[in-house]
């Protein structure tokens, strides 16, 4: 009787004694074994899928079809099936010939059967890793919209954004993408890059709000050796790194005014100078910017330069928030489910009807990023093959005016205390509040809290631990 989840072994040897011994040995260890004295019959059965094969063990010297010929024929239609060759001829030439023909391993007779077992186990592991790798590659290379990898959406607003990205992809005009945090502005930027004639060049992204101003300048423009304390060597900046490609400046609305002036000059003259150098260098990178802010209002407040605003706002692309793309919620959820199930080796098949309904009704203020985080969490914590409502964020998210946690008034986004709590608890709740308010954007949260990302990660991990203990 075949075991359901056992690996399948094919053994080929015209030595009946060895064939029986090996078949018995591996069956006792839970393998499904198909045994043959004739390699041609084994080949026919494998090719026609009459039998399944995870590993083949074959003698080298066989009547009718040799082990080497068997390998060559198998490789015509299966390039990855591990084949272990056995032989009493222990010459180097034969070993090399076997490996070059595509054998996975080469073992000498008389056999040390436990050693053969190790070789089989390794071959099966390799097979599994190769299959997983292939699945992951196929998944991430799936082209979903306009031939773009992993770009999911059918809503009118989303399609409009991507189609506009396509139209401007090969032009040199400045593009600025507007959209809420987590709405997919980088997806649009990548679409502009991938659909245009710069697709073979680099795509370099930086979040302008995540890096302190003094560091941001050196990141963007690079520096010469000795330009400042700590500059022990020269470094090229992101403008140069993105030459012949695209430089994506996310959260451009957070750029400090002095840097805005420098950026404006770069966009006008298409030249940069590394810090501490006099040499000007041409840049060929196309610059795409993005922001969640209303730049017009920022200009009125004096936080953003008007001349830079006009320079950037040649082709504005608006990425709608997820609540305006309701028909994309399920396709996105299914995509993330597949992705995280693969990455976490989880046997999750889909969502229950109730879960699908919950997904469509939640407000997703953190947009696609929040949705992705929620699905990842659901896949990791799900107790069955289908993600259910209990695996998803609660319905209290739905009501804006409701306080969903003690101490938080979500409608006014103000952190207020309604009962006494310990300093530690208050700390944790405040971090969680800011994190959620920023749509689970870690960089933005760290900046607002005035801590570095490492500290934030540590604190978020503590929060997860508390939540898991609560779930348990």
């Amino acid at each position, binding site marked *: 009787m075949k075991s359901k989840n056992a690996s399948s072994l094919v053994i080929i040897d015209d*030595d*009946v*004694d*060895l064939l*029986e*011994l090996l078949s*018995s*040995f591996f069956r006792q260890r839970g393998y499904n074994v198909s045994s043959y004295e004739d390699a041609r019959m084994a080949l026919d059965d494998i090719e026609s899928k009459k039998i399944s094969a995870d590993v083949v063990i074959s003698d080298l*010297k066989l009547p009718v079809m040799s082990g080497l010929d068997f390998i060559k024929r198998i490789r015509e239609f299966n390039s990855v099936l591990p084949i272990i060759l*056995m*032989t*009493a001829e222990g010459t180097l030439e034969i070993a090399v010939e076997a490996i070059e023909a595509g054998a996975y391993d080469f073992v000498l*007779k*008389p*056999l*040390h*059967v*436990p050693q053969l077992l190790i070789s089989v186990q390794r071959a099966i592991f390799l097979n599994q890793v190769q299959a997983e790798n292939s699945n992951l590659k196929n998944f991430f290379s799936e082209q979903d919209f306009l031939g773009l990898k992993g770009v999911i959406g059918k809503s009118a607003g989303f399609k409009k954004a991507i189609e506009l990205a396509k139209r401007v992809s090969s032009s040199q005009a400045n593009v600025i993408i507007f959209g809420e945090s987590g709405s997919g502005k980088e997806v649009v930027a990548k679409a502009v890059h991938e659909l245009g004639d710069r697709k073979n060049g680099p795509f370099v992204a930086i979040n302008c709000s995540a890096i302190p101003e003094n560091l941001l300048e050196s990141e963007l423009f690079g520096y010469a050796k000795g330009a400042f304390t700590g500059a022990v060597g020269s470094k090229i900046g992101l403008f140069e790194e993105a030459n012949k490609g695209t430089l994506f400046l996310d959260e451009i609305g957070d750029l400090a005014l002095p840097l805005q002036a420098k950026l404006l000059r770069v966009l006008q003259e298409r030249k940069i100078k590394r810090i501490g150098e006099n040499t000007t260098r041409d840049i060929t990178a196309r610059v795409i910017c993005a922001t969640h802010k209303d730049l017009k209002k920022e200009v009125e407040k004096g936080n953003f330069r008007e001349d830079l605003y006009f320079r950037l706002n040649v082709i504005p692309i608006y990425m709608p928030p997820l609540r305006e793309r309701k028909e994309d919620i399920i396709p996105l959820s299914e995509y993330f489910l597949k992705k995280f199930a693969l990455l976490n080796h989880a046997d999750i098949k889909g969502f229950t009807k109730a879960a699908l309904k919950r997904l469509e009704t939640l407000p997703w203020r953190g947009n696609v990023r929040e949705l992705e985080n929620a699905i990842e969490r659901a896949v990791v914590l799900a107790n069955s093959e289908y993600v259910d409502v209990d695996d998803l964020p609660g319905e209290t998210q739905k009501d804006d005016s409701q306080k969903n946690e003690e101490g938080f008034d979500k409608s006014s986004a103000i952190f207020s205390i309604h009962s006494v709590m310990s300093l530690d608890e208050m700390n944790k709740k405040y971090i969680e509040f800011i994190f959620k308010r920023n749509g689970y954007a870690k960089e933005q949260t760290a900046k607002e809290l005035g801590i570095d990302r490492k500290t934030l990660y540590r604190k978020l991990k503590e929060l997860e631990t508390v939540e898991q203990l609560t779930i348990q």
Partner: protein
Amino acid sequence: MSIAVLPEQQLKYLSRRGSDITDLKMSLETQDYSKLIMIGHRLKGSGQTFGFPLISSLGRSIEEAARLENVAALKGLILDLETAVEKYLAELPQSV
């Protein structure tokens, strides 16, 4: 002895060597050296696996002697093989 082989499997292996010995003698008589090489090669590859290193060693020698068509050596080796199989059979546990 290989830990993979059970005594009953060893008994079966040794029992089948009888027909090998018969084939070897006939092949020597008819000067069918390719068959002698084939049987010798098979014994070389299997004997030790079943816990009978002497059978592997004799198999190697039979194969080499057959390639050289050394009749005298082959006669002696076939007799040695017969003796080795009898000896191993006698050494097997009585319960098998």
